[in-house]
């Protein structure tokens, strides 16, 4: 599908990363690692620092201390090329409401240096929006926008897939579709990091969990059978 990028990696290491805003700590001394094939659930209550961590993993923010390494390399050394391998879907959907679905996809495909043709039709198909491709995004429902945003973030077949609360406002069927999509991505060798406060959604999807609260990493372990019970036992142990 995409042109082979010169930069690639199969691990992401968060090494003792802290991020402060003045006297407020967003993230404090967090370390973990995710490998190709992982679906890592970044779990924690609202305001735990999940979004800050995702932003730093996406190279949009720099850690105050510590370092994030992509395949053992620092992002400074890898340069802009690194971003060909990172896909981000945040709570805000990164779509232009004035433009049509096709225009949005086309712009971002070209921005990533992809030939628009097969990629866009495929993405529209995946989002189930093939018949509404020419309509403005502002006329879409939340669910439709979210599916489009998901495909938008995966256009360039990123190695590192970062999702920040991708399930808000979706019905069960849509959640199921997204979960399937994530499983396929991981099976194809992507590193999926999924930040959510919703344990039911993460249940059965993630294979590892990193639990953060108040900017601190409380646990980094394989996901057990019952996430809720696991969550409680970790929180209770503190």
């Amino acid at each position, binding site marked *: 599908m995409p042109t082979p990028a010169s930069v690639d990696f199969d691990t992401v290491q968060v090494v003792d990363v802290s991020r402060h805003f003045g006297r407020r700590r967003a993230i404090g001394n967090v370390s973990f690692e995710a490998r190709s094939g992982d679906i890592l659930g970044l779990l924690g209550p609202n305001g735990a620092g999940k979004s800050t961590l995702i932003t730093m993993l996406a190279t949009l*923010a720099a850690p105050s201390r510590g370092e994030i390494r992509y395949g053992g390399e620092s992002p400074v050394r890898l340069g802009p090329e690194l*971003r060909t391998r990172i896909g*981000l879907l*945040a709570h805000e959907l990164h779509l232009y409401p004035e433009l049509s679905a096709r225009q949005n996809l086309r*712009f971002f495909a070209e921005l990533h240096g992809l030939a628009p043709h097969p990629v866009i039709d495929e993405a529209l198909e995946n989002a189930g929006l093939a018949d509404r491709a020419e309509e403005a995004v502002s006329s879409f429902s939340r669910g439709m926008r979210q599916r489009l945003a998901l495909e938008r973030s995966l256009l360039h077949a990123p190695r590192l897939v970062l999702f920040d609360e991708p399930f808000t406002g979706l019905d069960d069927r849509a959640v199921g579709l997204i979960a399937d999509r994530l499983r396929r991505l991981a099976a194809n060798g992507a590193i999926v990091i999924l930040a959510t406060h919703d344990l039911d959604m993460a249940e059965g999807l993630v294979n590892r969990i990193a639990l953060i609260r108040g900017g601190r990493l409380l646990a980094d372990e394989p996901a057990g059978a019952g996430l809720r019970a696991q969550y409680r036992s970790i929180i209770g142990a503190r």
Partner: protein
Amino acid sequence: MFFRTAWLVLRKDVAIEAKSWEVVTTTLFFAVSCVLIFAFALVKDGRAVGDAAAGILWIAISFSGTLALGRTFERERYSETLRALLLAPAPRAALYAGKLMGMLALLGLAELLLVPLVALLFQASALFSRPLLLAGLLAGGTVGFCAVGTLFAAMLVRARSRDVLLPILLYPIIIPVIIAGVRGTAALLSAPPDEPTAVMWIGVLTAFDIVFLTLALWTFEPLMTE
């Protein structure tokens, strides 16, 4: 990659604008309002005082430019698309270049309206007696204004109270542009047109543009990293 990305950003901005013409119409309307407001302040007995025409032209350009900067970047903030742009695998300064070109086109359009309007309302048809010099002044001044303005508006996207901070940060820095633009235009309006003075001010503007474009391209990436 750099120029391609800049071009894509520009094309996308034009496509969005072409759907509603919101920024263009509001900016043009605001520019005309500025001219009128200052006309009431500076016209006495049916004639503008001193070099008022030159001053009003540049005030209208800078005020409507500020408004347009705010609106343009509000669009990128609305769905946090600026972050998606920053994830493009091109040097980030390319995004600045694309946004800058959009602003230049927009202000160029505003000037196409403002210059004839000012010439008409203030009996300043002498503006057109040296079209090349006038174009040089407008181009130099607009590039200088937009070079600083685009960078500041972009970095303020994630700041609190960005609406009020943009003019506060921008105006002190672009005062030299305003001085050069106003004095250069006033030189063209004097009878006979004072060519050497206008050329000298174009020189000042060119130097300003080179320094601040370089500086903005250089500092854009670290300024946009949170």
